[in-house]
């Protein structure tokens, strides 16, 4: 899987690159509009991350270019400008998703995976890990072929963990992804823990080869 990151901020480009390389993606980067244009024209990717505000051009123009070239890449806009207008324009121009800075890396992984999955919907869309198999469309989970009953929140939690296996997931990121945008304003996220405890117990009872551990102070990790 090849991913192109078009982002002018060096620091951000590097963390995204490092994080995605851990997921075994092949990463290429571009730091402005022109080099982004060169790469888009010359190579094919599975997914492209585009920042809207770039030196010497706009990410929206790159989207236009992709459309003109009839490219089929999954495109995710990452922008500091969480403006509704940009979001609508980007999605109209064929972007698959829109992620406002700052974002959690786990969230970025989830968005990339689901964007790529939607692009190649001819194949199997299920996510597998060890003896677990999760189908996002049917919202089912099976362990060694036996279905595991989970409620909505538990399912969403497990899905997030399975997209980011072996990765540390910040508890804020987890709460936002599962409970929605307003929950991050809650004074403490201890309630997340009680849900995870339930999920962990269900997984253990079903003999899943997966364990969710708390990482002190930061969040959780499934291994």
């Amino acid at each position, binding site marked *: 899987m090849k991913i192109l990151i078009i982002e002018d901020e060096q620091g951000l480009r590097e963390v995204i690159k490092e994080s995605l390389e851990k997921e075994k993606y092949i990463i290429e980067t571009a730091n402005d509009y022109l080099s982004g244009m060169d790469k888009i024209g010359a190579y094919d990717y599975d997914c492209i991350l585009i920042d809207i505000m770039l030196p010497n051009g706009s990410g929206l123009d790159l989207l236009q270019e992709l459309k003109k070239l009839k490219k089929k890449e999954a495109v995710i806009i990452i922008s500091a400008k969480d403006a509704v207008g940009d979001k609508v324009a980007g999605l109209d121009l064929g972007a698959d998703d829109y992620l406002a800075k700052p974002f959690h890396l786990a969230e970025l992984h989830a968005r990339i995976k689901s964007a790529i999955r939607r692009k190649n919907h001819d194949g199997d869309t299920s996510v597998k890990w060890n003896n677990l198999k999760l189908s996002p469309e049917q919202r089912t989970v099976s362990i060694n072929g036996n279905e595991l009953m989970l409620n909505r929140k538990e399912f969403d939690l497990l899905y997030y963990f399975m997209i980011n296996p072996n990765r540390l997931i910040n508890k804020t990121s987890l709460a936002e992804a599962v409970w929605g945008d307003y929950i991050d*304003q809650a004074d403490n996220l201890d309630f997340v823990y009680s849900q995870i405890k339930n999920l962990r117990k269900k997984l253990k009872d079903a003999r899943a080869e997966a364990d969710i551990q708390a990482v002190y102070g930061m969040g959780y990790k499934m291994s």
Partner: protein
Amino acid sequence: MKLRNYTLRYLIIALLFVIALWAGLFYAVILEEVYDNIDDGLKNSKILIIREAYANEKVLEVREFGINQYKVAPLAKGKLYDFSDKFISTFEFMEYDDDNEPVRLLETVFNDKNGNPYKLTIRASMVEEDELLEDLLTALVALYIMLVVSIALINQIILRKAWKSFYEMLNGLKNFRLGTGNSFTARHSPIAEFKTLGVELEDLLKRNEAIYASQKHFIENASHELQTPLAISLNKLELFVEKNELSEEQMMEIGRVSDTLNRLVRLNKSLLMLSKIENRQYADEETVNFNQLTEQLVEDFQDLADYKNITLSIDTKQPLTFNMNKGLASTLVGNLLKNAIVHNHTGGKVNIIISPDSLIISNTGRETALDKDAIFRRFYRDITNEQSTGLGLSIVNSILVNYKLKADYSFNGLHTFTITFPVKES
């Protein structure tokens, strides 16, 4: 006191003195003239009577006024008499109306053809002249009243006309609010001073508006610029922790840094949202079904509520719809609901009641009422909660202001927020 009444008051008082003085002078002059006239008539009679006395001795025998308007009294011979005319105003009884009436008398001394001195008194009634003076006084009073009334009226009309543009400007200023988009335009005035005032006001407010706008945009731009460095710091920390070479204690420390950064992110997001609401960047509106929206949010918050053992009860039997931006609608209800849960005690209650013209969220919590005037202010927050941004209710308030809605807070054991929606005409 209105300006026109203020000037009118002084005008009327001044006029009272001026007219009184003028009337006094006028009255004195006219009185003088009237007496002068009568006296001339009396002098004329004197000449006629004395001439007649020379021709006809009988004249000298008239001792009482009777039908004649004169009387003659003989004086002792050989004394020295004053032969000049003396005029006297006095009252005399008149049978005609059984009352004393004003008369004017001329007293003089004359010698007949034999050289005997006589005292002659000639009388002239002043009844008519007196009435004339009375009429004059009445006319003066009437004149004064008419003058005052007409001046008041004219003053009213002229002032109203002259100050019209001023009052329009005042009205414009009353309706003017910074940052609401209604700009102030001064109406054209024919009066130079008001024209200048209008132009200066327009200028001043335009400058204010510009400063206000740039201040708002500064907050927005600053928040935007903060996003990327925040993203980098947070993400770098996440990657750093993943390397797994840290002791538990070090992890905890980094966890705290990460929490603080997350708080900064929230604060930044809230500020950004606040300035976006104030800059009216949430333009697209639709009919929002608050029943659905609230039920959805209650579901989202259920786990948080369960964790604190809080009972959420919701009464959505009656429909409430309102035309607004959907994202803002859920922020509005979401923030209130979140507050109701977060600022609650374990085992507390949150009640939501939706009616066609209001949304009421009440909750248990602290035993004392909150400061009604301060809660909607930016960065007001409960001292016990350091994780809150202090912007939640400011955002609520900005949204309400944007849609001209009203929120009320009351405390009667429960902290109650009521949002009142306009009643729809059916």
